[in-house]
């Protein structure tokens, strides 16, 4: 055996703490090590080239690189092995950065530890086995979950690239949150002007199939070859026959709180979605419809002149074969009732920014008039950061959009009601997006009082809303009467995130949003191969950044589909059928569903494409019949023994 050892300086990341030359010289004394070198950056082009050349020139058959965490560069160095002409898995990376130089300051001790880590890696690499990557073909189709601006954008890109797209939306119509907005910042363009053409293009695209009222209920398979099960709630109205005449709505005896205005208005149990929601045909809300809950009412059926209502339409299920998945499930708005000092639930003229947006909308409940309970406000107070940058409600993060949507709403209000007295209470103005600082400058010139300081309480005095706030420039607490208070509520992870996380095996960051594979290198990828993130499900962002990330998710998702094949990593479980007793304990611990019991033979089988190589099965197996390749007992024990001997604890 001929082993080459390389010790990386990582600039001064390693070399400032570890005596790299001493580690190199020590490595030369280890069994079968025929060559040891050190270099400033092993991951750089010349570093890689050096290893590649040495493999040929010195007939190396094993390589150990002492550098950073394998999570960073194991893949990089395995490719170098292949280029050098030896199996990529005859390689071991000793982590002397994260596990040594970054956590120790004593040069002598750190150098000794680095030597031990290298010796252990050399012991292990002796026992490494050659492994072969496999390839799987790819189904050229994508499942996009979420029919808001992110899902629509991603769907259009994937369809334009020539792939089959299944677009899933849990509501009865496409459009998401943006369909409820009145204007967009910074150009004040109508949300509809941007959204409606996009919906039309996606709808009419021959590569796209849209499922509304649809939820993902099961997912099997692996990158390139997923099978998704989708539950479809019936609309109970024939979309092609409905003329939106509204007779069904008139006839419906039910009255419930309307989600579209967050409870400011009521609706019936059969609803006409307002444009640009699509389809805008009526939809039956079975949860509240008396036909289902009580007496079998069919008032809407009789009222419809087109006979479009069918309360007997059944639930359906679809199975879809897809190669990749784009998650675009958006966000949920913070519930300001969690800040009781703002009295959102008790004072009717304390509303949220999104509610104001509906009031300002020509398709909204007041057709764009600023009226609540018949009264028009003379003064309005806007409060920033409601549910953002707030440890009290466990939301330390900034929601990125509230500064600007508030500025936009202030502008809409001042344009329509120039005499309105408006105060905005803020912490920091975060008008960072393109054209937004300029926008904020313009709004300030519209006679708007921007006050730096937070509101501590909203209360009533003699029936009138009062706001208590701090002006940090004047260093004073102030109280003033107002008519309406508008809360700039922030974003939270969407409902259903837990279920989706389990189905798709996704991770979440501390803020609860889905976690990207790497914040900079792979910002829209996830740790699950073939699953990508678009828009606010990964974290708050505005429309421009959402659209950007949706395009990005489409690009990343398109790569395996264009390539037509995916590589399957060979570090997976393998079953020694001689030893396996078929107890199936391993099947229970496998969260990926990679293990199945072959009932006939009473032996376990591994689906190598599904197995992620986590090792839970091999740790569980009572007879050591199931082993994880590249992490077999003898390989790990050789490494551990060496460390124990070195530290005097055999």
């Amino acid at each position: 055996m001929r082993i080459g050892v390389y010790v990386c300086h990582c600039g001064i990341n390693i070399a400032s703490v570890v005596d790299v030359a001493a580690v190199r010289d020590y490595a030369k004394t280890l069994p079968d090590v025929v060559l040891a070198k050190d270099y400033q950056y092993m991951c750089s082009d010349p570093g890689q080239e050096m290893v590649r050349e040495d493999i040929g020139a010195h007939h190396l058959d094993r390589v150990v690189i002492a550098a950073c965490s394998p999570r960073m560069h194991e893949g990089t160095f395995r490719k170098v092995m292949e280029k050098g002409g030896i199996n990529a898995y005859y390689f071991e990376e000793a982590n002397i950065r994260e596990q040594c130089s970054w956590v120790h300051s004593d040069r002598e001790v750190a150098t000794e530890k680095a030597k031990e880590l290298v010796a252990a890696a050399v012991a292990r690499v002796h026992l490494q086995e050659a492994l072969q990557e496999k390839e799987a073909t790819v189904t050229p189709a994508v499942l996009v979950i979420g029919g808001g601006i992110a899902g629509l954008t991603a769907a259009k890109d994937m369809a334009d690239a020539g792939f089959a797209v299944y677009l899933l939306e849990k509501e009865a119509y496409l459009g998401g949150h943006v369909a409820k907005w009145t204007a967009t910042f910074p150009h004040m363009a109508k949300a509809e002007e941007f959204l409606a053409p996009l919906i039309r293009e996606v709808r009419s695209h021959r590569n796209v199939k849209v499922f509304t009222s649809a939820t993902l209920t099961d997912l099997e398979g692996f990158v390139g070859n997923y099978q998704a099960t989708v539950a479809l709630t019936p609309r109970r109205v024939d979309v092609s026959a409905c003329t939106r005449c509204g007779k069904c709505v008139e006839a419906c005896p039910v009255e419930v709180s309307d989600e579209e205005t967050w409870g400011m208005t009521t609706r019936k149990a059969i609803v006409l979605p307002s444009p640009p929601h699509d389809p805008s045909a009526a939809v039956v809300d079975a949860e509240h419809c008396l036909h289902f809950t009580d007496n079998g009412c069919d008032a809407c059926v009789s009222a419809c002149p087109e006979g479009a209502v069918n309360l007997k339409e059944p639930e359906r299920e679809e199975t879809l074969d897809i190669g990749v998945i784009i998650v675009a499930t958006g966000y949920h708005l913070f519930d300001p009732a969690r800040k009781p000092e703002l009295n959102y639930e008790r004072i009717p003229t304390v509303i949220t920014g999104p509610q104001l947006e509906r009031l300002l909308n020509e398709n909204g409940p007041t057709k764009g008039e600023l009226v609540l309970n018949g009264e028009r406000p003379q003064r309005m107070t806007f409060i920033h950061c409601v549910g953002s940058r707030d440890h009290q409600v466990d939301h330390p993060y900034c929601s990125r959009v509230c500064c600007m949507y508030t500025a936009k709403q202030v502008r809409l209000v001042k344009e329509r009601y120039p005499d309105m007295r408006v105060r905005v209470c803020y912490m920091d103005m975060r008008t960072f997006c393109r054209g937004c600082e300029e926008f904020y400058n313009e709004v300030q010139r519209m006679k708007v009082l921007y006050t730096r300081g937070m509101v501590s309480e909203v209360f009533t005095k003699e029936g009138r809303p009062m706001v208590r706030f701090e002006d940090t420039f004047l260093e004073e607490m102030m109280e003033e009467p107002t008519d309406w208070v508008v809360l700039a509520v922030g974003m939270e992870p969407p409902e259903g995130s837990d279920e989706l996380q389990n189905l798709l095996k996704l991770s979440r960051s501390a803020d609860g949003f889905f976690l990207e594979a790497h914040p900079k290198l792979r910002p829209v990828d996830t740790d699950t191969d073939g699953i990508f993130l678009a828009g606010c499900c990964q974290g708050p962002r505005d429309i421009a950044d959402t659209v950007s990330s949706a395009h990005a998710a489409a690009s990343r998702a398109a790569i395996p589909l264009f390539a037509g094949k995916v590589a399957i990593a060979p570090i997976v479980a393998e079953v020694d059928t001689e030893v396996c007793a078929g107890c199936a304990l391993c099947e229970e611990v496998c969260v990926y569903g990679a293990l199945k019991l072959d009932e006939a033979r009473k032996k376990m089988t591994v689906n190598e494409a599904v197995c992620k190589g986590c090792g839970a099965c091999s740790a569980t197996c009572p007879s050591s019949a199931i082993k994880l390749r590249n992490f077999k007992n003898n390989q790990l024990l050789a490494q551990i023994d060496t460390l124990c001997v070195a530290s005097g604890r055999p």
Partner: protein
Amino acid sequence: MKDVLVIGAGIAGIQASLDMADAGFTVHLVEKEPTVGGHMAQTDKVFPTLDCSSCILTPKMVSVGQHPNIRLYTLSEVTKIDGKAGDFTVEILRHPRYVDENACTGCGACAEACVMKGRIPNAFDMGLGKRGAIYISFPQAVPLKYTIDPETCLTLSRGKCKKGPPCKLACAADAIRFDDTEKTLTVHVGAIVVATGYDLFDPRLKPEYSYGKYPEVLTALEVERLCSASGPTLGEIIVNGKKPSKVFFIHCVGSRDHTVDNLYCSRVCCMFTAKQAHLVKDKVPDAKVTVTYIDIRAFGKGYEEFYERVQKEGIIYRRGVISEVFKRGDKLYVRGEDAFLGEVYEEEADMVVLAAGLVQRKGIDIIKKLGVKMGDDRFFSGPTPLDPVESGIDGVYLAGCCVGPKDIPDTVVQASGAASRAMAVLARGKAA
């Protein structure tokens, strides 16, 4: 058409190229510098994770250099673009490197031998480090091929050097080519991704900050090089020959500023300042570090949390702009307003860092000639601000800071985004 052009090989161009190359398209990547990497390569650590920038960038640079589907043209510029989506004809001008890329092994013997060694300010180190007339910008350069700077090379600028000349004598690979010339080549592509990046605002346009007048006044990118292990001070914070004890960071230099006609926010300065304040405090724990700001814009994932952490580390944040940096006797002072206390103060400083903002690149006429419009902020601007990837011209897509300032995650995201639109054009073949 399976070919695509990417202009600019910073992190945006790199990401867009890798996506399209991995998908099987042939990428022509044009970079005007001798190496790929752009501004990100000059950065020491990245916020908010404090990963070392080169640790996460280098593998992508290496992939670009080695990818079978990427044709990399460094020291090159696009001089002409004709045609339309699905069928563009592009002329690329390759400037002479005066070193044969195929022969050079990157050993560095030439740079050791150069008579100008250690005498020319290295632009990569913001002039704080020195190089010779034959050089590489930094050790991880891709391609790792030396370049002769014709303006400072004695052979090329004056027609004579020491006998040999020494670089040529030192080169075992015989790679030096003093007779190298400009070359023009033509490629045909179906789509174009523009990723030309940004320039830094020149703080000399704010003379009240005395940049260029006093060596204690630095730009953030200069501090980035001082923090870097492979930088001119090997990672030590040395200003004017000594470790600083009173450090002032000034936000919004050339951003949100009517006086220099830059009304926009540069989007990254709040966070890179928080990061640098942390690094300086980490390297010089006794230093008093003060950050002066207008608004703190910590809006990305984990940014607000990082800002909170930095404040807990003892870094002082004072709201209010600094009006002047000046010397009284031999001591340097800053004068500013503390907006909370409502008072003007003067304090001594021995290091002042200017968070200079981002401005549109110079030398982008070819993109303008294509018909891509610019906003009032002079960055490229498509038909709607809601889809920043679109340029307004079918087949041409925008990525990264050429469409407005943004941080690395947003840049990488947008680069993949531009790649997505470009691939859709390539996939549909010749446009009707």
